[in-house]
């Protein structure tokens, strides 16, 4: 075991996969010579050279589309977006070409591409740079959506995503890049579509992905200390494919559920979870399903308010207390 950052976990995953498979190529703005805007790819260009780490112009539609074309012929491109917010420039490529082509080819053509980068608010950069598009992308059959909360998950999930034969939208978080967790020295993979119980509990299930998982873990500590409520934290890890069984088993045990996400509430991941849970475990519920999300407006710049727009432990706790 070694205590490493989320950023280093992503980097070692890329490094190992570049070494393992000659088809892996990392493409994006400033990923090579500058070591990445957030230093995720630091040292990889020095180690692997120009053919494996490719700096691009500011042409998201272009290099995402090129990644898709190359993937159709068997390369495994890992496309870095400086921010997922810039993916909208490449939306056609992602939705139509990455998302639909396997289906339209009658299953003859795969697109084994990974598109990765940070998708988060909370850094006072305003609305256009704070988007969390996991719900938009998960709405597209053909795309997979992954959002790790810890370094351990980031590494295992990225390696699996690179080896996966479908397009994987990999959502990171700049506020997690510097956080440290224990990660095994030996190789491991984490399958897509396998949720993880980050904290076992008996009274309520807090269901989340990405940084919201960390928020839930903090809320769980306070709930037990101050209210004697024992919360279970379910980390979805991948939103699509979705591990319904782990979510449902947790709800069957605790009989209460609160879904927490940093995205916006309208048509959000929480809406999907709530509908799935009430459909499949209605009789197990002792209370309506609660939801906590970003407040429903574009991300505000003003710093004290931006913090309050995102879910925090206090809002999770209030929601839990209102359920019982």
């Amino acid at each position, binding site marked *: 075991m070694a205590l490493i950052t989320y950023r280093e976990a992503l980097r070692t995953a890329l490094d190992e996969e570049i070494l393992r498979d000659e088809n892996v190529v990392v493409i994006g703005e400033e990923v090579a010579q500058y070591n990445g805007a957030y230093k995720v790819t630091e040292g990889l260009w020095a180690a692997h050279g120009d053919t494996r780490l490719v700096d691009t112009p*500011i042409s998201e539609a272009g290099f995402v589309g090129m990644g898709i074309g190359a993937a159709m012929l068997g390369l495994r491109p890992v496309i870095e977006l400086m921010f997922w917010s810039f993916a909208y420039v490449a939306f056609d490529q992602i939705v139509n070409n990455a998302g639909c082509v396997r289906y339209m080819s009658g299953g003859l053509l795969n697109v084994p591409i990974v598109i990765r980068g940070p998708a988060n608010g909370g850094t006072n950069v305003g609305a*256009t740079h704070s988007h969390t598009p996991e719900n938009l992308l998960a709405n597209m059959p053909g795309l997979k959506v992954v959002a790790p909360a810890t370094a351990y998950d980031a590494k295992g999930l990225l390696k699996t995503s690179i080896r996966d034969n479908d397009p994987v939208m990999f959502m990171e978080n700049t506020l997690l890049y510097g956080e440290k967790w224990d990660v095994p020295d030996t190789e491991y993979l984490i399958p897509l579509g396998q949720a993880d119980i980050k904290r076992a509990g008996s009274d309520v299930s807090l269901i989340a992905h990405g940084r919201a998982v960390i928020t839930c873990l903090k809320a769980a500590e306070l709930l037990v200390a101050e209210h004697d409520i024992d919360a279970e934290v379910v980390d979805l890890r991948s939103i699509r494919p979705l591990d319904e069984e782990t979510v449902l088993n947790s709800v069957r045990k605790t009989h209460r559920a609160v879904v927490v996400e940093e995205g916006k509430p309208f048509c959000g991941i929480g809406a999907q979870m709530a509908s799935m849970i009430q459909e499949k475990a209605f009789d197990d519920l002792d209370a309506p399903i609660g939801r906590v999300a970003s407040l429903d407006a574009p991300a505000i710049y003003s710093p004290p308010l931006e913090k309050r727009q995102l879910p925090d432990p206090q809002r999770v706790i209030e929601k839990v207390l209102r359920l019982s």
Partner: protein
Amino acid sequence: MNLKMPDLSTTGSPIKVVRWLVEVGDFVERGQAIVEVETDKATMELEALGPGTLLQQLVPVGSEASAGDVLAVIDETQAGSTVIGNSHTANEVSYHRDFLLNLYERMLLIRQFEDRVKALFLEGSMPGTIHQCQGQEATAVGVCAALRPDDFITSTFRGHGHALAKGLTVQEMLDELFGGVTGCCKGKGGSMHIGNIGKGMIPGIAIVAGGIPVATGMALAFRMRKTQEIVACFFGDGAVAEGAFHEALNMAALWNLPVLFVCENNLYGASTRIDQVMKNTKVSDRAASYGFRGETVDGNDVLAVYEAASQAAQECRSGRGPVLLELETYRRSGHSRRDPCHYQPKEERAFWSANDPIIRFAQALLVDGNADLDDLDRIQKRVDDEIESAVEKAKTTPKPGIEDLLTDVYAS
């Protein structure tokens, strides 16, 4: 100063004087329309390049003139305070001293503003990220000086200079950076989205190239409403690689829209030098491939920028737009808050320091006798005082409350 007939006709046919808008003996402002002329394509107004008194109308109404013909004589020594021999050798246009000092003050205001904001970031009292424009002041000031008050601009993540040049106040901008309700965007936009539509600047468009089609659409609106406004669209060299740039230029050309595309070529997009991301690094060449005029200009010479932008603005107003201006300049700050700028070679930085637009212009003002050191000191003091008092107020500007968070999302 003579007002000459510009080269307006695509076919070379003569141009008719339709109406004089100013009487002999009248005082005219810089930019004021003096005469209405009609080409084979459009009717347009010609403007005074500087303030002064109209001495003579040389072409009577109904008569024709050709490009280069002198239409009117304006005496700029009668423009208020006296002119002390001023000259900009490029094309021997002379400018009123007040106009020149104004350009200087605007550039200095931007420089001091940016330096002060940087200090606020370093001391930890300002949040978020910043993209600063030290070294690029002449582009913003030169272009905006060529616009009329009712013209528009669009900007980017690096918008502080454009905003100050367009007339946003130091106070409304600092308040915004501090996230206050009194900010130009009520604390909702922040540094990368600064703007004030009341002053002709929509909020900064922080997605690279995103503002280029938007500006083109504004130009379409002017055209549909048959107004005389134009829009200047600022963007960086990095934007040239985005599809939006090409799509917008093509449509602007197709419909002759009154949009002035202003590429501030500062040699880098973030850390990446332009020759790593484009084979033809002459950005202005792109215009020809879409069928309109492009020009590369020394972007650190504020008068060269002003003149190029004035001509381009006139072309846009007369229905002969768009125009692409490539302004060669250099960013003396990091790309954003945390960028240490390692990638800019020492010699390159030294070259551009020596070529600093504010120092260059100050020297020209001194050499031409338009200003002495006392004048420059006085300006500096005025600028610094304005910024300092605004900083004090901005630090305590009230922040929006939670009730403000959900407002302004929809119009209805």
